[in-house]
Every structure is written in C-alpha cells, then in structure tokens.
C-alpha cells in the first residue's frame, strides 16, 4: 500500500516494549471486532451444514443467485460509469474556478458527506414516488399520461446510488487534476494542439490515476451497497447485499449468507490488492474535509 511516505517515522524512537504496549489496544480491537468475526463467518461458510464448498456451489448452481451476482456487477459498473461522466467536469471546474464559485462547487460536492445516506435515500423515495415531483413533471411535459412506477425499480437504485457515491469520484480526480501544472496545457496549445486534443493527450492521461482511483472506489463501494437497494430497489431485483440480508434475517440460512459475504469480500479484497498502487488512501481520507 502507498502509505509509507505518509507514515514517515520521526523523533526519538520508542523502545520495542513501548511500541507493543501502545499498539496493543488497536490490535486487540481489530482482532476482536473485525478479524475474528470475519474469519469465523468465513469458516462457517465452509463447515456448515456439511464441511466443503457446498454453500458456494449453491450460488453457482441456482441461476437466481447467479443473476443477483451479475446484476450487482452491472449496477456497480453503471454507477461507476455515470459517476465518472458526472464527476470529471465538476472536478475540472473545481480546479479552474476561483473565489466564491470554487467555494460553492466544493460545498456542493462535500454537502453529501454532511448529510446522512438515509436522508438522501429518503429524498429519492419522495422524488420518485407515485405522486412525486418527477412523475408530475413527466405528465406536465406530456411524456407520460399517468403516473408510472419509478420507485422500487433498478433505475431508482442506479440514480440514487450515483447521487450518493459520486462525491467519492470527484475528490480523487480533483486531486490528480490539481497537480497538473497549468504550463502543460499552454505548452500543448503553443505546439498547436486544439483544446480537444490538449485534453485527450495531456490532461486526461495525467488525471488517469485519479480517475482509476475514483472508479475503483465507487465500484467497490457500490458492489456491497445495502441501504439504497434495500429501500429503493425491487425485491424481485436484489443486489448481493440485499440477498445477504434476506438469507440471514428471513431465511436464517447463516452458512449460505456467510458464503455470499465470502464471495463479496474476497472479490473486493482481490481488486483492491490488484490496484493497490493507485489507491492513495491517505489522500482520499485526508482530503475529505
């Protein structure tokens, strides 16, 4: 991981005993409330009801579950793509504007961090309801003649998730764009590149690490997202998180729910490790306020 530059030790070194003593509470917390519960959950998935990979085979055998996995992937891809298309120009505007305008854009981007996911999901429930604003607008414009079902659809989930996750895309792209010297764009135009070419051959390639970081962050978060699909999605079109919840709480099939958690966690971890170099966790977290 690219944290070593961030955590550069300084000052007089502590004794080994001191270090162990100071770090002990952290390791105890993570061991007790994170590692052990997760590992025992994963072991449950391969030991119950019979030892082996029966629970995982069940995911593959039943087309219903396969569909849920594919739908989850598809929604995550869609949300990442939409977020990128919406976020990139905003990040560009954040870099190029100054004064009150820059402050306004930044405030808009950060506002979602300041209001809870539940509130924003409730807002979409209101907007999309049968007699909500969007249905009224559609009828007013003559696009539809009567209220159509917008809530509890896949579209509702995609739109609301994009709304919730898009800010996570803006920040890494903004971070990358901000570090591109303005001279580069000028140099490109002096060399005869038009604005379009200068964007595609200079700006975009240099912003790519930020783009990749943002896309992966949004994609991975979307994969395991629970609140929005649970409240706005249709029960017939579940995502993996809502399926996990159903298996755990309604069918009480803990080992199967554990296997689904296993698939999700291993997939997410693998992608993170694969792209660990583009993840600047310190920047993403440090730059949030």
């Amino acid at each position, binding site marked *: 991981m690219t944290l070593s530059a961030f955590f550069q030790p300084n000052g007089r070194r502590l004794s080994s005993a001191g270090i162990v003593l100071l770090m002990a509470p952290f390791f105890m917390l993570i061991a007790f409330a994170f590692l052990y519960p997760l590992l025992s959950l994963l072991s449950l998935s391969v030991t119950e009801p019979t030892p082996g990979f029966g629970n995982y085979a069940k995911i593959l055998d039943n087309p219903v579950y396969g569909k849920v996995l594919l739908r989850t992937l598809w929604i995550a891809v869609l949300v990442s793509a939409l977020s990128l298309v919406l976020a990139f120009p905003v990040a560009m505007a954040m870099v190029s504007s100054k004064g009150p305008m820059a402050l306004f854009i930044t405030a808009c981007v950060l506002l979602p961090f300041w209001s809870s996911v539940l509130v924003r999901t409730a807002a979409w429930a209101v907007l999309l309801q049968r007699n*909500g604003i969007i249905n009224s607008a559609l009828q007013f414009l003559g696009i539809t003649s009567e209220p159509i079902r917008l809530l509890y659809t896949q579209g509702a989930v995609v739109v609301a998730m994009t709304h919730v996750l898009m800010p996570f895309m803006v920040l890494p792209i903004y971070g990358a764009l901000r570090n591109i010297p303005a001279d580069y764009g000028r140099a490109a135009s002096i060399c005869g590149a038009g604005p379009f070419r200068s964007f595609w051959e200079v700006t975009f390639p240099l912003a790519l690490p930020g783009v990749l970081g943002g896309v992966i962050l949004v994609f991975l978060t979307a994969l395991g997202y629970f609140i929005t699909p649970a*409240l706005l999605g249709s029960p017939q079109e579940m995502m993996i998180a809502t399926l996990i919840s159903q298996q755990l709480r309604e069918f009480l099939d803990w080992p199967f729910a554990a296997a689904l958690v296993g698939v999700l966690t291993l997939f997410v971890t693998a992608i993170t490790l694969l792209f660990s170099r583009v993840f600047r966790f310190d920047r993403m977290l440090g730059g949030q306020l």
Partner: protein
Amino acid sequence: MTDLNPRKLLLNAYVYAVLFFILAPIVVILPMAFSETDYLTFPPEGFTFDWFGAFFGNSRWMKATTFSLQIAVLTAITTCVIATMSTYALMRGAGRLGALFQGLLIAPIVVPHIALAVALYLFFRQTGLSSTITGYVLAHSVIAMPFAVFTIAAALSSVDATLEDAAMSCGASRFAAFRLVTLPIILPNVLSGGLFAFILSFDEPVISFFLAGIRDKTLPRMMFDDIEQNLTPIIPAIAVLLTGISIFVLVAAALLRRMADSRRTVSPEA
C-alpha cells in the same frame, strides 16, 4: 479566453446541471419538515413546527436518539484514545509491527460494511453483545479508526520532533514530553478525528441495521424502518436536525484543523 467561449459555456452548463443533481434532492426534502400534511409532497403545504414536536415528544424516537448519542460519544472517545496511542507508536519507529498496523488499518475500509455487519451480527449473538452499547461502540470504532489515524498522523508528521527530544534531554519522561509538548500541538487534530468518528457513528446505518434488537434501536435504524414503512414529515424534520448537526460538527472539525496548522507554523523550526 473569455467566458463567452461557447465550449466553456457548454462545460459550465453541464457542471451546473450536475450540481443541481447533487443539491436538488436535499433541497427538496428539507422544507418538507415544515409541511402541515402528514404525507410528503412538494411544495410543502402550510408551515408548522409540529413534526419537530412529534420527534421530540415521542419517547421511542428520543430513546433511539439518546442511544445513538451515547454510542457516538463513546466511539469518539475510544477511537481518539486508541488512534493517538497507536499512531504515536507508529510515528516513533514501529518497524515491522507498523507494517502490520498499516495493513490492518486499511482493512475495515476495504471490506464492505455489509460483510462486517453480518460477521458482527453472528459473533455478537454468541457473545451476548447484541444491541448493547459496547457492541456498537466496538463496531463503530473499527470503522472510524482509519479516519482518526490519518488525521492524527498528518499532525504528528508535521510536528517538529526535536521539541519532544529537547524536553526529554531536559529530563522529562517520554510520557511527560508527549503530554506537555506533543499532545498540546496535535490536540486539535485529535479532537477533529474524534468529531469525525462521532458523525460516522451517529449516521452509521448498515451495522446499526443488523445489530439492532427489537427494543434497542439506534436513530439510523428507526429512520430506516420509517422510510421503509411509513414515510411522514418526521424524516425531513430529522434530516434538518441531522444536517444541522453534521455541518456544525464538521465545520468545527475543519476549524480545529486550521487552528492546528497555524499552531504548528508558529513553532520556530517549521
């Protein structure tokens, strides 16, 4: 280039449209808190503070709010203390243990919250921690820890470590040097990390959803149930309160950080 450049105008229009998309849902829901109707409609009809009264006057909502506040305060304290201890050790040469620390620090960000929620749901059932304050505080501290560590590490890496050395050379113990020299400098960042942990815990919906019992529900869990079953203007009313609290707390955290930065630039070596 002037602003009348058509390409730039187009880009601006696009950016405004996106900002509208970000703001509109929030702007639409907040005024509904003052609606006189018991269903949600826009524009809201009439003007009343009744829904705030309904929230503060309802013992179930009040119990859930108190419960969430207790959890959030304890999470903030736990996270601050543990994060300060371990980050300090890390920045004073933790060696191989430090590498393990960094790996485990990132893990709760990478692993989806639903996975941790399910794991803790089953684990806490076995250990009797279900819907106890302790259970929630442990879970929320795990999630908040990375954010606090990064905030504190940022402060520690810019503090002039020779100040602490000087104190120790003058005979102060390590603890005294930390408490009297380093801690006062990084305190705003520690508090800012704590505030962040508070908000993260207070707003946390997924783990709350799974850990909640029938009686001991957190505020986010109560909200979830209301949104799912019976959406009344009480939710916008809570949204107004929550947004207000979040903005207040996060502005406070930002001010604390700024204060910390100015403190550090005053130190002679920086």
